[in-house]
């Protein structure tokens, strides 16, 4: 009797579950489909423009002669300098927070502040870089000003990644080192850091791959869109791949859109290589305790 009354409800409940599962799979499918469409869209428009000439020519008003040499060189400069600035500072701050900081209000502020900085829109960093590095320090619209701005932008990510890596180092290692008479810094330098390094490097590479795709802050500090020479010092004006892409995409002519797609192909390949490198590094060197 009562079992009969349950049966239809059970069927309905199961059907609701099935519908929901289909909905969930559709959601995932949507993301995958969008990624596929985006990649195909870019490849279809841009792949035929990617050639040796494209990589080694300076930008030009004539689409057939245009290339991304200055943008590639600018991005390389930018990456090297940003890494050079953000890596030591970020790792230093992480070591301070994980190994030195006392448990007091200042440390709490420091940690909250880093979490909040990670959520500040990148264009606000651009405004900061414009006021501080371009004008106050007088770096001008140079590679150095851009790299310093991007370094501040990725710093919270580097710090948080490095902290995670340091946290993963077991305490027994530190205690053993202290036990044989090492000082605090000797312990960190010779025991903790070597173990944490792969994790730190992976986090740094991932944050740099974010920096290499950043556009807005560099537009703010005045990276130029048309550069027909190679930057030779950190004080030179510069352009980078994302700005070149922005510039070409903003033009009305279809040929320039295709050039932008070509530059996107190059940028995505660079990003892919960096991410693959980070994952390899993680899998190869990471020790588990």
């Amino acid at each position, binding site marked *: 009797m009562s079992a009969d009354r349950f049966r239809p409800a059970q069927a309905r409940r*199961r059907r609701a579950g099935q519908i929901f599962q289909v909905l*969930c799979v559709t959601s995932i499918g949507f*993301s995958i489909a969008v990624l596929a469409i985006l990649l195909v869209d870019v490849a279809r428009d841009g792949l035929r423009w990617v050639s040796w000439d494209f990589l080694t020519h300076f930008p030009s008003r004539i689409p057939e002669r245009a290339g991304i040499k200055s943008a590639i060189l600018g991005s390389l400069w930018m990456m090297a300098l940003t890494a050079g600035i953000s890596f030591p500072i970020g790792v*230093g701050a992480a070591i301070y927070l994980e190994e030195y900081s006392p448990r007091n209000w200042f440390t709490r502020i420091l940690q909250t502040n880093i979490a909040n900085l990670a959520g*500040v829109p990148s264009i606000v960093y651009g405004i900061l870089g414009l006021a501080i590095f371009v004008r106050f320090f007088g770096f001008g619209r140079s590679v150095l000003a851009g790299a310093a701005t991007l370094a501040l932008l990725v710093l919270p990510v580097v710090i948080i990644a490095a902290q995670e890596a340091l946290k993963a180092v077991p305490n027994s290692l*530190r205690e053993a080192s202290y036990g044989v008479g090492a000082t605090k810094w000797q312990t960190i330098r010779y025991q903790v850091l070597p173990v944490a390094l792969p994790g730190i490097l992976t986090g740094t590479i991932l944050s740099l791959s974010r920096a290499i*795709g950043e556009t807005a802050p560099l537009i703010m500090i005045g990276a130029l869109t048309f550069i027909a020479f190679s930057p030779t010092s950190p004080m030179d004006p510069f352009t980078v791949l994302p700005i070149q892409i922005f510039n070409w995409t903003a033009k009305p002519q279809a040929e320039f859109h295709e050039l932008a797609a070509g530059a996107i192909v190059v940028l995505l390949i660079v990003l892919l290589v960096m991410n693959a490198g980070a994952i390899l590094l993680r899998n190869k060197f990471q020790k588990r305790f």
Partner: protein
Amino acid sequence: MQTEAELTSPSGSGGPPGGAPRSAVTLDLRHRASRRWGERVIALLLFGCGLISVLTTVGIVVVLVTESAGFFREVPIAEFLTGTRWSPMYSEQHFGILPLLNGTLLIAAGSMLIALPVGLTSAIYLSEYASPKVRAVIKPILEVLAGIPTVVYGYFALTFVTPFIRMVFPGTGIFNAASGAIVVGIMIIPMVASLSEDALNAVPLSLREAAYGLGATKFEVSTRVVVPSALSGIVASFILAISRAIGETMAVTLAAGATPRMTLNFLESIQTMTAYIVQVSLGETPHGTLEYRTIFAVGLVLFIITLAMNLLSQRITRRFREVYE
């Protein structure tokens, strides 16, 4: 973790000066002392590195506030906050930020219509339904989606999404809010999915088992037990996502246009706060003029809104988190 005092005290009291083998002890002590002096310098240097992040925040606030102060000496704050016309570059100047705010919120609302449902259902699928094998494939795909630079999404909006919208709604202009909102929504899906999934994963298995024990279906367990238990984390991820949409710049600059306007129509060209800042810095506006200072005033509003939302998100996570042992 040991503190500085615990570490240094044994060596400090270990070798008192005086006594017979004095020379050996002092030598050792001097060595110790120099090493400790170096230790202190290193600790100070590391502290300095940490301080830079605080200085960054101070720098942002000081720059935005001082430059905005110059702006607000000439434009009353009330006019800035309540004016419905924004035209600093025209001969008849108006400095009402509401049109820019309107554009920003339109993009944020539109993108959330996509990112919240898709992100949350993706998270539920990953956490409750997917086998480890499927997860191992889908998670990296979402990470790739999250790693694509925003300028690329801008290109995608202009060359794919906009033509599609114009096909469905003929007569739509090249620049429209819908195209910008759609790509911003897409780029935020991975963030909502991954943060919500973390929240869902934190719900202990025992809750699910109890619900299954009462005869609930997987759907009922997921939506009536797991999601409500993880609600604070899910809401926190939503707020972070909105904050991210508000700060998003390049895709919106490329796709949504440069027309500050009070509208709720997604098919019209609009301008967001971020797109306005980019427009000014690309132009020829001389430094130090009132027009130029607008970017700091707009930047200040943008910073306050995003900071408030980030703090709110952290607060929700902390205060309303159900703590399971």
